[in-house]
C-alpha cells in the first residue's frame, strides 16, 4: 500500500491513489443514492388509494392518461414527490453547511431553534394576523430568520464556537417552545391541531405554486453554497490556518450560515419545520462515502431520499396517515442516539 511516488521523486506522478479512490467512492455512493431515489419516486407515484400500474406512469407523465389518472399522478403525487425531494435536498445541504462551518456534527437548524422560531412565527401570524396560507408562510419565514439572527448574536463571542451555538440554540428553542405551548392553549382546538400538524412538518396539501416558488428561489442559494465548498474545506483546518491560507474564515462562516438559513426557510415554507433531516443526512453521507469532509451533493441526495422515504412511510405504512415530520423526528432521534452510543464505544 506504499505510494510509488518515492520512485518518481521530482517527477509529476500519477494522481494519488487515495484521492482518486476517495472520489470514486463518493461517486459510487452518489449513483447508488440516485438509484434509491428513483425507486422511491416511482413508489410515490404508484402507491395510494388509487393504485396506478407502473407501466402507465411514463405515459401519464408525458401528458397522456385519462382525467383522473392525470390528476392523481401529476397534480397530487408528482407535486408531493417533487416537494419531498426538494425539501429533503435543501435540508441536507443546509445541514452540511451548518455542520462544516461550526465544526460540530451536532449543529443543525432544528437543534438551533430555527424550527421553533418558524413555528412561533406561524402561530403568532395565525393568532394575530390571518390564517391564509401566504400569511402563515410569511410568518414562519420571518420567525425563523429572526430566531437565526438572535441565536447568531447571542452565540457570537470572540467568533462563533460550535459548543456555544448548540447551547444557545437549546436555550432559545426552549423559550420559543414555551411560547408555542402557551399560544397553542389560547386558540381553538381545531386550530391548535392544524397548527401542530403543520408544526410537525407535513407535506399534506402541498400545491405546485408554493413548491415551485420555494425551489426556484433556493436555486441561487444552492449554487452559492457549492461555490463556497473549497473555502469551507479550508475552514475545517481551524480558523487560524484558514485565515493563513487566504480563506477568510469569518466571511465564509457568515455566508455559509446565511445560505443555510435561507435554504431552511425555503424548505419550511413548503413543508413546515421538518426535524432531523438536516442533522442526519450529512452525517450519513459522510460515513457512507468515508470522506473527512461533509459532501454537499451527497447530503442533498440522501436528504431527499430520507424525506421521501419518511413521507411514504407516514402516508402508507402507518395505521393512520401522519405528518412526515413525526416520522423523521422519531427516526432521527433513534439515529442520534445510535451516533452517541457508537461514539461512546469508539472512545472507550
Amino acid at each position, binding site marked *: 500500500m506504499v505510494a510509488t511516488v518515492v520512485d518518481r*521523486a521530482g517527477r*509529476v506522478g500519477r*494522481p494519488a491513489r487515495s484521492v482518486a479512490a476517495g472520489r470514486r467512492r463518493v461517486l459510487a455512493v452518489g449513483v447508488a443514492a440516485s438509484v434509491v431515489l428513483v425507486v422511491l419516486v416511482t413508489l410515490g407515484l404508484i402507491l395510494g388509494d388509487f393504485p396506478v400500474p407502473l407501466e402507465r406512469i411514463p405515459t401519464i407523465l408525458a401528458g397522456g392518461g385519462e382525467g383522473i389518472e392525470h390528476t392523481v399522478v401529476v397534480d397530487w403525487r408528482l407535486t408531493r414527490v417533487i416537494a419531498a425531494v426538494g425539501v429533503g435536498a435543501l435540508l441536507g445541504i443546509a445541514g452540511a453547511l451548518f455542520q462544516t462551518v461550526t465544526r460540530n456534527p451536532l449543529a443543525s437548524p432544528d437543534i438551533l431553534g430555527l424550527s421553533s422560531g418558524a413555528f412561533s412565527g406561524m402561530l403568532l401570524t395565525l393568532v394575530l394576523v390571518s390564517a391564509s396560507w401566504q400569511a402563515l408562510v410569511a410568518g414562519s419565514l420571518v420567525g425563523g430568520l429572526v430566531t437565526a439572527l438572535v441565536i447568531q448574536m447571542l452565540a457570537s463571542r470572540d467568533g462563533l464556537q460550535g459548543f456555544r451555538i448548540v447551547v444557545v440554540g437549546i436555550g432559545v428553542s426552549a423559550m420559543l417552545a414555551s411560547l408555542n405551548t402557551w399560544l397553542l392553549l389560547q386558540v381553538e382546538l381545531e386550530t391548535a391541531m392544524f397548527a401542530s400538524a403543520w408544526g410537525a412538518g407535513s407535506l399534506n396539501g402541498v400545491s405546485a405554486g408554493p413548491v415551485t416558488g420555494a425551489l426556484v428561489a433556493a436555486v441561487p442559494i444552492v449554487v452559492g453554497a457549492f461555490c463556497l465548498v473549497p473555502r469551507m474545506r479550508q475552514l475545517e483546518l481551524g480558523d*487560524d*490556518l484558514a485565515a*493563513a491560507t*487566504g*480563506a477568510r474564515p469569518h466571511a465564509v462562516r457568515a455566508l455559509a450560515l446565511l445560505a443555510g438559513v435561507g435554504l431552511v426557510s425555503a424548505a419550511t415554507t413548503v413543508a413546515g419545520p421538518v426535524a432531523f433531516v438536516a442533522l442526519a443526512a450529512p452525517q450519513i453521507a459522510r460515513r457512507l462515502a468515508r470522506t473527512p469532509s461533509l459532501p454537499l451533493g451527497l447530503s442533498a441526495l440522501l436528504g431527499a431520499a430520507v424525506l421521501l422515504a419518511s413521507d411514504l412511510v407516514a402516508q402508507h405504512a402507518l395505521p393512520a396517515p401522519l405528518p412526515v415530520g413525526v416520522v423523521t423526528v422519531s427516526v432521527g432521534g433513534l439515529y442520534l442516539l445510535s451516533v452517541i452510543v457508537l461514539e461512546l464505544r469508539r472512545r472507550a
Partner: protein
Amino acid sequence: MPDRPPASLTVEQASFAYADTRIVDQLSLQIEPGSFTVVIGPNACGKSTLLRGLARLLAPEEGQVVLDGRSIAGIPAKTLARRMGLLPQTAVAPEGITVRDLVSRGRYPHRGMLRPWSPTDESAVVEALAATGTTELADRPVDALSGGQRQRVWIAMVLAQQTEVLLLDEPTTYLDVAHQVELLELLAALHEQGRTIVAVLHDLNQAARYATTVVAMRDGRVIAEGPPAEVVTSENVSAVFGLANTVIPDPVTGGPLVVPLRAPHVTEVRP
C-alpha cells in the same frame, strides 16, 4: 523554490490587543530578508500575539505591519497567503483525512475557483512531502500518525504553499527531544534554501543554536534583538526570564549555552 527577491517584513510601532487588554505595545521590529528569527520570552510576554499579528490573524490597534513596502492590511487574503505561510498552534485535522489530502490543502492560495488540480500543484505537494520526509506516509490518515510525524505533515502543508516567509508558532510543542531537533534541522535546511523564517520557541538553547537573529520579549516589548551571541547573555536571560543562570560556550557550535543555576526551594515560615 520559486525565484523571487527575499521578502522584507517590518513591524512599525504596532500594538496588538485581545478583548481590551493590550498585549503588545508599540513594538517595532525589522525581520531581515533571508533570516531565521526566533522570538523568545516568558509566558504571556506577547510572542505568540506578535506572530499572529505578523500573520494578519490579528489587526493592530495602532501602527502597521509592512511586507515589501506595503501594509499587509491592504493586501488581498490569497495574495498574502502566497507570500507568507503560518503554522499556528491550533491546527485541526479533519477526521480521517490522509496526509496527501491535508498537504494539498496548502495549495489553496494558488488555486482559483475554476482551476482544476494542475501539475504545478502536484509537484508542489510532492516536493513538500519529500522535503519533510513524509512521502511514505502520503496515503495514511493523519490521525493515525505519531506526534512527530504529524508535525512534519503540517509543515509539509505549509511548505506546499510555497511562500518565501514561514511563520511558526511553537512548532516543537508535544514533540520529544529527538523530534524537536529533527524539526529544527529541517527548518535550518529550509532557511538555507533561501526562506525567511520567524519562529516562536520556548527553548533558549534551541533558539541560540538555530537562529540568525534572536528577539527577546517581555511584557509586550522587545528587550533585546540581534545575533544569538549578543542577545543570549546571562544578564539578558536574567532580566527577561527572571532566571538565575550562567552562559557557557556550546561545545558543539561555540555559541551561547544557557545553564540555570540551582536555587534551593525555600519553605515559607508561617507567622
